[in-house]
């Protein structure tokens, strides 16, 4: 009997230790430096003393993480928000180019795309032929603005043309098609639908013959451990040409390996700042506005628009994973540097798998913030709005003259705003400069109409916003593949990453005023601008308030420190 009880006790201790291990170090970790572990201790620390102490600790540790990377300088962004930005003036040549094409028709959009591709191909080809760009005798791939990859360091069995067969170009994709964030799996269906349209209407030509773009999709259920397994499978068994991953934790888990294996990983489906690291991770790029930029834009907006309330109390609802923590870290650093704007900041974290957020939002409401920022994704976007409505947070904040923000990844009207009903009215968003395909304001635009028609033709429901997001990623992907196919040597991995790093395009799903551009090692972020929009629940549309902010080319690169969080 005693023996049995002993065994039970041991088993219980073991269970507790497992849970404790899963929780991580807690407070003790804060001594290791700033960043991720530091932020853990700030959650729910509502008393001023704790906040002050922590800020003091962070000041001491400033050197560990340095200034926030992956975004433009705060002054640049704040000036842009205040409308004092010195906008890059367009050259006469650029203005003429823009006027040459009619963006109000699909033909005009495609003509402009073709012309821009031809220009990029001509520039890259000239540089490659002169020996300035391309793989040199020393085995180094060189590209614009100091971009370099030592291809001789790639694995021995690496091939520049893996994944290109006689009839296909095989592209691997890991995404969540099951689990709590399964809705994001819809992006893959939209992307594939666009590639199918390309294959049928205007295929990629390799060596004079058409090749079908084929997506090999693996469902990782948003679990990073599964992403690692599937990426191995895509490399070793599926022999794909390039790989695109979805999700910050998932992409962080595999981007070291993909860069070691010299496999292109452009336009990943996440806005984590880590994707702007052309020196250490040259094969990886992002597409959407970085979460760091978004965090600064929240702060800049508060500073500019809530002047009468300053300093304000801000509460955030943070998804507890690499994605949410990138937001949290970004905004916390901004708040720390702007204590005259933000007097207190309370991040309340939630389990990504939590079915309801009632308790978390009760904690937020009890803090009585002037500004609430949702830093989450997927269904929690909707839950945050719904709970804020039901617990009175919306009314309380509005009565004070404050504001509520939903994050850029929650812009989808049909998916996240419409189901929240009237509670969604007047929420703000730093929208990432992207048009939502279900927004009635844009449905008659030629490219959005093309997407929606194309989706219907493919048997997909245009009311699912995330299908159109697949085009947002698929369109520049296709453009870069076309450029690469026209370079000396044709389509191969080095030409593809060269084309990606030199891309300068008009993206018809981006708002006017948003540049879609990369430039070697100098500009590692594709979209660096945003709209500030307010939701009109009656008309079910995002109304842009004020000017579009674009800090194109001014974001600093970010070598992400995986251990401590933040850019090294």
């Amino acid at each position, binding site marked *: 009997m005693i023996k049995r009880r002993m065994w039970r006790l041991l088993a219980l201790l073991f269970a507790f230790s497992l849970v404790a291990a899963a929780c991580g170090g807690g407070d003790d970790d804060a001594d290791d430096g700033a960043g991720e572990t530091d932020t853990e201790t700030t959650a729910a620390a509502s008393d001023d003393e704790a906040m002050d102490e922590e800020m003091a600790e962070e000041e001491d540790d400033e050197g560990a993480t340095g200034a926030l990377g992956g975004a433009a300088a705060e002054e640049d962004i704040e000036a842009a928000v205040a409308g004092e930005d010195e906008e890059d003036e367009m050259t006469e040549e650029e203005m003429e180019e823009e006027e040459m094409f009619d963006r109000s028709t699909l033909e005009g959009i495609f003509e402009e795309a073709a012309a821009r591709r031809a220009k990029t191909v001509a520039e890259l080809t000239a540089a490659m032929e002169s020996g300035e760009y391309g793989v040199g005798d020393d085995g180094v791939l060189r590209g614009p603005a100091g971009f370099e990859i030592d291809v001789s360091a790639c694995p021995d069995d690496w091939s520049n043309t893996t994944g290109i067969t006689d009839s296909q170009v095989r592209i691997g994709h890991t995404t969540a098609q099951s689990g709590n964030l399964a809705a994001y799996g819809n992006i893959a269906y939209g992307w594939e639908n666009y590639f199918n349209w390309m294959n049928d209407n205007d295929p990629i030509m390799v060596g004079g013959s058409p090749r079908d773009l084929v997506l090999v999709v693996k469902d990782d259920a948003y679990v990073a451990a599964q992403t690692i397994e599937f990426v191995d499978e895509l490399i070793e068994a599926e022999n794909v040409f390039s790989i695109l991953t979805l999700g910050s934790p998932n992409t962080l888990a595999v981007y070291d390996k993909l860069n070691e294996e010299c496999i292109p990983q452009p336009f990943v489906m996440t806005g984590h700042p880590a994707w702007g690291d052309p020196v250490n991770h040259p094969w990886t790029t992002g597409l959407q506005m970085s979460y760091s930029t978004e965090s600064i834009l929240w702060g800049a907006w508060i500073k500019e628009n809530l002047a009468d309330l300053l300093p304000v109390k801000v509460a955030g609802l943070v998804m507890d994973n690499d994605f949410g923590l990138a937001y949290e870290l970004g905004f916390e650093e901004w708040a720390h540097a702007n204590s005259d704007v933000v007097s207190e900041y309370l991040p309340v974290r939630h389990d990504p798998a939590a079915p309801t957020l009632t308790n978390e939002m009760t904690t937020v409401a009890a803090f009585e913030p002037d500004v609430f920022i949702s830093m989450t994704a997927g269904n929690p976007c909707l839950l945050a709005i719904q709970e804020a409505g*039901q617990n009175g947070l919306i009314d309380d904040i509005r009565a004070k003259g404050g504001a509520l923000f939903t994050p850029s990844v929650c812009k989808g009207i049909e998916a996240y705003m419409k189901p929240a009903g009237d509670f969604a009215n007047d929420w703000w968003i730093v929208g990432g400069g992207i048009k939502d395909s279900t927004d009635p304001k844009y449905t008659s635009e030629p490219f959005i109409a093309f997407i929606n028609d194309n989706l219907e033709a493919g048997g997909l429901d245009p009311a699912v916003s995330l299908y159109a997001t697949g085009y947002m990623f698929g369109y520049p992907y296709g453009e870069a593949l076309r450029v690469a196919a026209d370079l000396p040597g044709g389509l191969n991995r080095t030409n593809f990453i060269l084309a990606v790093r030199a891309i300068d395009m008009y993206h018809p799903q981006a708002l006017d005023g948003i540049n879609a551009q990369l430039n070697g090692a100098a500009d590692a972020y594709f979209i660096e601008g945003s709209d500030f929009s307010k939701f009109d629940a009656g008309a079910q549309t995002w109304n842009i308030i004020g000017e579009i902010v674009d800090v194109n080319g001014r974001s600093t690169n970010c070598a992400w420190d995986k251990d401590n969080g933040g850019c090294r």
Partner: protein
Amino acid sequence: MNWNFEILPDFIFNGLRDGAVYAAAALALVLIFKATTLINFATGELAMLGAFFVYVLNIEQGLWLWLSIAIAMLISAGIGAAVERALVRPFDPADHLPVVLITLGLFLIINAVAGDIWNYQVRRVNDPFGQFPSWVPNGSELKTSSEGTIACLTNSEGQLAEVAPGTSGAEMCEMVGRTFFEVIGARLHYRTIGTWIALALALIALAIILGKTKAGLAFRAVSSNTESARLVGVNTGRTLGFGWALASVFGTLSAALVAPALGGVNPNMMLTILIYALAGAALGGLDSLGGAVIGGLAVGLVKSVLVSWFGVVVLGQAYFSILQLAMAFLLILIVLLFRPAGLFGTRRIERV
């Protein structure tokens, strides 16, 4: 430590609301366990299917919400009985492994099929307990606020009055339905009370069915001793089918009750809820219907008060927020280690 007692009642109400949903789902688990002594891992997915039936009937077909729920329960009962007949009954009841594998397979299949039909984007549903019905003048425009519903009346020309965005337009609009009571400074939402009442009514109905009907008597006989029940002429197969049908009804009820709090229905809505329900059933006793209810409510309270209030608010430890599921597993482990039959379950006594 920040002993914020002001918000504790909110957390208690939240916990008891979630707990009532776990209790209903736990009842579905216990009903099948009582009949077959195995856990049906497809309970959550069958419940999700029921919630989608409510969505189709109420939102797409325009039927009255409560009628939609009733019809969805009946359809679910049919599906539950059909699953038992087609996929469970052919197997030897003494050999649990094949049936457990079948329920796992069903879990995957139903989830995938629902995803294929309805997509994973959340679909909004009506809240059965959102607010008290109230008389609203013709031509009024209804608006939602955190207090409830506001009816904005027409002006003298018969046109809808303009309401400035973000304001309630006090002189033109009036409150016609609130969504909560204020109890000791906390919001006790009608949805919470409604969920408790629905659970209580369902329990009464279950007690009547099991205690006062022939089918219920047969079910109790089979769940007590299958062999003896068969020997006295009870059709055990049909009775087990009845148990599956009842379980599906309770599953559908739990999913329909929780759907508004989840933002709507989606194929993954019951994934996590089933784990909490399992913890509740294990705590109360896997073969105790009353235990399932108390266990479900207790799990809701532990999650809300111990983890979210004490862990996050009082101790100020953010990582407690991701411990909610871990706590459910820990609870299951502790119960299985120290009281395998649960708090109210039947203790197995082995004669030697």
